[in-house]
C-alpha cells in the first residue's frame, strides 16, 4: 500500500518516547562509544538535511522577502499571480471538502462492506500516490480533453484543474479514516441502537464523532498536497494566465523567465500556507491524542 503521506499522521508517535524504553541506556562501560557514534550520525543527518532541505528552503524565504514588504506585496499581487493564488487556495479548499465526503464514503465501503473485487478497489486507492503526476495529467486529458471519446471536453478550464487535484489527493482521507474506522468498536454503535437511537443519530453521534479528527487531518493533508501540486495541473490547465494557472505553474513560469525573486515571493506564500495547515493539524492531533 502506497500510503506515504496519509500514514504520517498515525506514525507520529515517532517523536514521543516509548513507554518500553529501557532506562538503562547510556549506562555501563560501553556508554561513551555509542554516544560518539550517535553524535556522529546525528551530525551527518543534520548536515544532509541542511544541505538539501533547510538551507534551500530558507533561501526561498530569504530571497522572497529580502526586497522588503512592498516589493514582496507587488510580486504576489500582480494580476496573474494573485489570480493563481486565489485559484490555488479556493480550488484546494473545494478539493479538500469533496475528499472529506468521498474519502469517508470510500473508507466506509472498504471497511464495512464486502463484495467481490474489493481487494482491487483497495489497491486502486493508492494508485494516485504511485503514478507520476505528469502521467495523471496526461491520463485525465485523454478522457476529458479535446480527443475525449465521451465528448466531455473540459481541457484548459478550471474544472480540469479541480479534476486533476481530485485525482492526486484521492488517497489522503481514505487512508487516514480507514484505520480509525477499522478500530472503531462496533459495540458502541450497537449499544446506541439498542438504547433506541435512530441509525442517523447513531452514525452522527458515534461514528462521525469518532472519525472527525481523522477526516479533518486527511482533508488537511489533501489541502496541502493540492496547493503544492504542479505536474498533473501543468498539462491539463493549458497555462492560461489569470484563468487556469495555479500558483505552482506561475512560479514555474517566473523561474523560466529568470525572475527568481518574484518566484521566491510567491513560493513563500505557498510555504506559509502549508506551514499554517501543518501546525493546525499537529494541534488537532495532539488534542485528539490527549482525549484518548
Amino acid at each position, binding site marked *: 500500500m502506497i500510503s506515504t503521506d496519509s500514514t504520517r499522521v498515525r506514525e507520529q508517535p515517532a517523536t514521543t518516547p516509548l513507554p518500553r524504553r529501557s532506562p538503562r541506556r547510556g549506562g555501563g562501560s560501553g556508554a561513551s562509544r555509542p554516544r560518539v*557514534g550517535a553524535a556522529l550520525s546525528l551530525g551527518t543527518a543534520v548536515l544532509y538535511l541542511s544541505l538539501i532541505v533547510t538551507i534551500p*528552503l530558507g533561501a526561498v524565504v530569504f530571497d522572497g522577502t529580502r526586497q522588503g514588504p512592498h516589493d514582496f506585496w507587488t510580486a504576489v499581487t500582480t494580476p496573474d499571480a494573485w489570480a493563481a493564488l486565489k485559484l490555488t487556495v479556493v480550488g484546494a479548499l473545494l478539493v479538500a471538502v469533496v475528499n472529506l465526503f468521498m474519502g469517508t464514503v470510500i473508507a466506509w*465501503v472498504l471497511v464495512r462492506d464486502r463484495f467481490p473485487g474489493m481487494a482491487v478497489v483497495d489497491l486502486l486507492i493508492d494508485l494516485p500516490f*504511485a*503514478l507520476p503526476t505528469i502521467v495523471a495529467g496526461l491520463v485525465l486529458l485523454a478522457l476529458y480533453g479535446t480527443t475525449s471519446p465521451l465528448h466531455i471536453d473540459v481541457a484548459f478550464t478550471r474544472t480540469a484543474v479541480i479534476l486533476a487535484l481530485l485525482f492526486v489527493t484521492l488517497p489522503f482521507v481514505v487512508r487516514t479514516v480507514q484505520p480509525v474506522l477499522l478500530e472503531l468498536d462496533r459495540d458502541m454503535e450497537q449499544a446506541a441502537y439498542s438504547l433506541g437511537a435512530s441509525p442517523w443519530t447513531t452514525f452522527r453521534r458515534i461514528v462521525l464523532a469518532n472519525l472527525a479528527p481523522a477526516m479533518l487531518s486527511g482533508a488537511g493533508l489533501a489541502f496541502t*498536497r493540492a496547493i503544492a501540486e504542479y*505536474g498533473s495541473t501543468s498539462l491539463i490547465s493549458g497555462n492560461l494566465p489569470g484563468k487556469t494557472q495555479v500558483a505552482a505553474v506561475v*512560479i514555474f513560469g517566473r523561474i523560466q523567465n529568470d525572475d527568481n525573486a518574484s518566484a521566491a515571493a510567491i513560493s513563500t506564500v505557498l510555504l506559509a500556507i502549508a506551514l499554517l495547515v501543518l501546525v493546525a493539524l499537529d494541534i488537532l492531533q495532539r488534542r485528539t491524542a490527549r482525549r484518548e
Partner: protein
Amino acid sequence: MSEARSTAAKWAMRIVTVAYLAVLLVIPVGLIGWRTFAGGLQPVIDALTSDDFVHALRLTVVVAVCAVVLNTVFGITVALLLVRGRFWGKRLLSAVIDLPLAVSPVVVGLALILVYGSHAPAGGWIERHGVQIIFATPGMVAATVFVSLPLVVRAIVPVLQEFGEEQEQAAHTLGASRWTTFRRITLPSIRWALAYGIVLCLARALGEYGAVAVVSGRIVGQTQTVTLYVEQEYNNFDQPGAYAAATVLALIAIVALLVTKLLRPGGRRADAERLTEMQSGREEQR
C-alpha cells in the same frame, strides 16, 4: 423497514465508490493503455527504442538509484536516531523530515537553484571547482532526494518502535560490536519495512516531474528524464510517443503498488495483526 433502508444505503455507497473511482481513476488510466496499443505494437516499439527515450530512461534510472541509495542510508540513520536516540530537538528533526511532503515540487527546484545555481555564492564556488549542479545530474539527484526524503524513515520508524531494543542490548552484552548488532539483529528485524520504504522511494523517484523539470533545464538527450520526455512528446503533438512512455511509467507504478502490497503485512506487525482476521493468517506463512 430499517433493514431495507440500510441495505439501500449500503448499495448506494458501494455504487458511489465504484463510480467515483471508475470516472476519476480506472477509465482514464485504462484509456491511456488502450490508446497506446491502438495503432499496434510497432509504434510503441519505435517510440520506446528511440534514442531520446532510451537516454531519458537511463538517466531516470541513474538519478533514481542515487536518490534511493542516499535516502536509504539517511533513512536508517535517522530512524534509529528518532527511535533509539535521546537528544535535544528531536521533535524538530522529525518535523523537518516530514516537511518535503508539504513543499511544492516547483518550490523544491527553485530552492535548489537559489543555493546551488551558478549565480548563487555556493553554487558558483562549487562550479569553479569543476562541478556543475543545476542543469546537471547532481541537481536532479538532489531534487529527487528532497521529494522522496521521508519515505524510508517513515516506513522503518514504526517497526523499530515495535521491535524494541531488548535484543540489541542482549547482543551488546554478549560482546557483539555495534556494527554486528546492527547487521545481525536490527537489520533483519526491519528488512520488510525497509524494503517497503525503498520501493516507495524508488517509485516516487522514478516518477518525479516538477522538481526535476526546474533543475534539469530539460536539455533533450542530456538532462531529460522519462517524465520530462512524456511532457515534451505531448507538447510536440507526438501522442504515440507520449502515451508509450506514460504507459511504461504507469506500469512501473502498478508494479510498485503490488510489491508494496506484498511487503506491507510482513513489514508492519501492528498492521498485520489487525489484518489477521481479514486475511486469515496469511502473514504467518511469511
